[in-house]
């Protein structure tokens, strides 16, 4: 998952949370406006890590951001872990192959 995909997924999830809470009267349009105003600068983060850290701070104050954070970032991190493990397996495999070749020689 790329950083851009993460951003898009988070935007979609945040909008879903805002719309749902507005409809269920858990959120007023003024509060929704504040959430959007605080979220928009976070989109300018240069890296995914910075983006996640900024969102983690905002999540303490806005339940909508927290909900979106739990759903999207968890998925992103799972994906990242899977990628890292995959890369690690490749590295180990390469290392093992090289080591075997070295022993044989």
């Amino acid at each position: 998952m790329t950083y851009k995909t993460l951003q898009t997924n988070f935007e979609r999830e945040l909008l879903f949370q805002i719309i749902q809470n507005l409809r269920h009267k858990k959120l007023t349009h003024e509060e929704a406006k504040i959430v959007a105003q605080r979220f928009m600068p976070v989109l300018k983060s240069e890296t995914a890590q910075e983006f996640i850290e900024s969102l983690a701070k905002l999540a303490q104050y806005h339940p909508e951001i927290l909900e979106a954070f739990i759903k999207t970032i968890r998925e992103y991190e799972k994906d990242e872990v899977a990628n890292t493990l995959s890369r690690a397996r490749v590295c180990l495999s390469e290392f093992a192959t090289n080591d075997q070749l070295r022993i044989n020689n």
Partner: protein
Amino acid sequence: METKILTNGTNSTTADPLNTAETTTMKKNFEEKEIVIADASEAIPEKPEHNPDHEIADEILKSAKEDGFEDALQKLADGEFEKDLKESEVVKAEENLLEELIVDEEIFIQEPITPENGYMVERIHELEARVANLELKNKELSERLRNSENLNIMTIFSLAEIARILAEMIKEEEKGEEKVSLLEILVEVLQEIFHAIIDPNGEMQDNEKEEHSSNEEEENNPRRTLLEIVEKLQAEGQIRTNRQIQQDVHSAQAA
């Protein structure tokens, strides 16, 4: 979808429940019930609750579909959805203006009397008293109007005709002194007409009676002069007699 149906606890057969007659009947009954329930829900329409946040949610969803997630969030942050909502609220406020005015009026009526509106309350009482007084006067006038059926119409007609002749004489008269005397007579005639109108039965107030009795004793009594003039003119045939006027009035009433 296939379902196993056990018969006599021994054999098992595979059948499509949608093809069996029993299932078809049940399905039909269920559908009919559903239709009845749907009709009942339509029969009692729920009053739609006005929720501005709900409208904003719809606007956000629409924007997200059309412009994208980021633009929708940006619009929300800029408060663009609020503007649309405010415009629609203004329209709704105008629609409910009359209802609100009625509610305001009720509040005004129920408002307790305070020093600020005490003056207005006094003013209202004063105006109510004036209205009552005017109604009383109106009754009196109505009574007098009914009494005016007994108006001595003959006298008024005679005097009016004399006034007309006097006016012609005044026009033709060249000498100043005689003109003045004619004018004085005309004034008297007009006063008599006025008296006849406001006092149709010829009844005078006590003070007026005294005034008249004292005046009659005078030699230059204008009323006597006037009567003499009337008699003279009638004798000469220059003005109509009372009988002629009466006949004219009768014919006019018959017409």
